[in-house]
C-alpha cells in the first residue's frame, strides 16, 4: 500500500501552516485517499483521484481556509462588528449634531420637571435609518442570520434599552438616587432614546432583513 501521507506531503509541501495543523491536514487527506483505495465501490480510482486534484490550488484553498489571519470569530464578524460600526456612527452623528446645533435642543436629556425634550424633532433622527442600514448591511454581507442582522441594525437602541433597564432597576431598588426625577420623565426619555430611534433604525434595516441569496 502506498504511503499516502508521503504522497500528500510531497504534493502540498508549499502549504504554509503551523506544523501541527499541517500534519493534521496531511493525515486527513491521506486518510481520504486510503478510504478511496479501500472502497472500490465508491466509484473512484485512487490514482485518478490523486491526479485529478490540482494540488497547488488545493493547498492554496486549504491555507486560506485554515489560516488564522482573517479568521475572525464568526459572532464577531456577523454581529459584534456590524453592531459596533452602527453604534459608533450613531454616536458620531449625535456629537456632530450637538456641535452644529444648540445642544439643548439637540440632546435629549433626563431632567426633572418635565423639561425632557423628546428627540422626536431632532435632525439627528433623520440619520438613524442610515445607521440601521449600515449595521444590517454589514451583518448581511458577513452572512449573518436574520436575528443577528436585526440586532446589528438596532444596536444603539438595544444599548439604550440596557441602560434604561439598569436605571429602572436602580430607580426601583434605590429611589433616593432619582430624587426629584419623576418616573414619567424616565419613561418619556426612554421613549425618546429607545422607541423612536429603534423604529427609525429598523426602517433602515428592513431592506437587509429579507433577501434571497446564494452563499458565497
Amino acid at each position, binding site marked *: 500500500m502506498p504511503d499516502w501521507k508521503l504522497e500528500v506531503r510531497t504534493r502540498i509541501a508549499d502549504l504554509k501552516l503551523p506544523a501541527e495543523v499541517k500534519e493534521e491536514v496531511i493525515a486527513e487527506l491521506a486518510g481520504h485517499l486510503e478510504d478511496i483505495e479501500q472502497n472500490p465501490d465508491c466509484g473512484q480510482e485512487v490514482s485518478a483521484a490523486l491526479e485529478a486534484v490540482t494540488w497547488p490550488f488545493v493547498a492554496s484553498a486549504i491555507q486560506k481556509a*485554515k489560516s488564522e489571519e482573517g479568521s475572525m470569530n464568526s459572532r464577531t464578524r456577523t454581529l459584534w462588528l456590524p453592531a459596533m460600526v452602527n453604534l459608533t456612527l450613531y454616536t458620531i452623528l449625535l456629537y456632530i449634531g450637538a456641535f452644529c446645533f444648540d445642544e439643548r435642543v439637540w440632546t435629549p436629556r433626563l431632567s426633572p420637571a418635565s423639561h425632557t425634550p423628546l428627540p422626536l424633532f431632532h435632525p439627528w433622527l433623520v440619520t438613524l435609518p442610515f445607521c440601521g442600514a449600515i449595521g444590517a448591511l454589514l451583518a448581511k454581507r458577513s452572512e449573518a442570520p436574520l436575528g443577528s442582522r436585526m440586532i446589528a441594525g438596532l444596536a444603539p437602541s438595544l444599548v439604550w434599552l440596557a441602560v434604561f433597564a439598569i436605571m429602572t432597576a436602580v430607580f426601583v431598588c434605590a429611589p433616593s438616587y432619582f430624587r426629584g426625577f419623576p418616573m414619567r420623565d424616565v419613561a418619556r426619555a426612554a421613549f425618546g432614546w429607545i422607541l423612536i430611534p429603534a423604529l427609525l433604525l429598523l426602517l433602515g434595516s428592513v431592506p437587509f432583513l429579507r433577501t434571497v441569496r446564494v452563499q458565497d
Partner: protein
Amino acid sequence: MTKRIRSKIARGSGEIAILSLLAEQPLYGFEIAKQIGERTRGSLQFTLASLYPLLYEMEKRGWVEGHWQTNRAGRDRRYYSLTPAGRRQLAPLRKEWQSFFQALDALAGVSHA
C-alpha cells in the same frame, strides 16, 4: 452562466448538503463525500479538492467542528459534527434554497423540466 455564479451555487449547495448530512450524525470526510454522492445519485459529487477546503472554511466559521476518532475499520479519521451555530444556520439556508428554486421554477419551469 458565468464561472463565478456557478462557483457560488456549487459552494452554497455544498454547504447545505454538508450541514444537512451532519445534522443527522457526525461523519468524516470520505463518508460525507460518499453519502452525498449516493443520496443525490451522483448529481452532487465532492472530490478531495472540493470537500476539504469547504469543510475547513465551515469549521472556521464555527458551523462544524472536527475531532479525531477511530472509525469502524480501526483507522483514525477526523469526524465532523454540527455546532449549535451550524444547526441554526441550516433552517435559513433551507429556506433560502427553497425560495431560490421556487423563483427559478417561476422563471424557467425547472421543476417540470
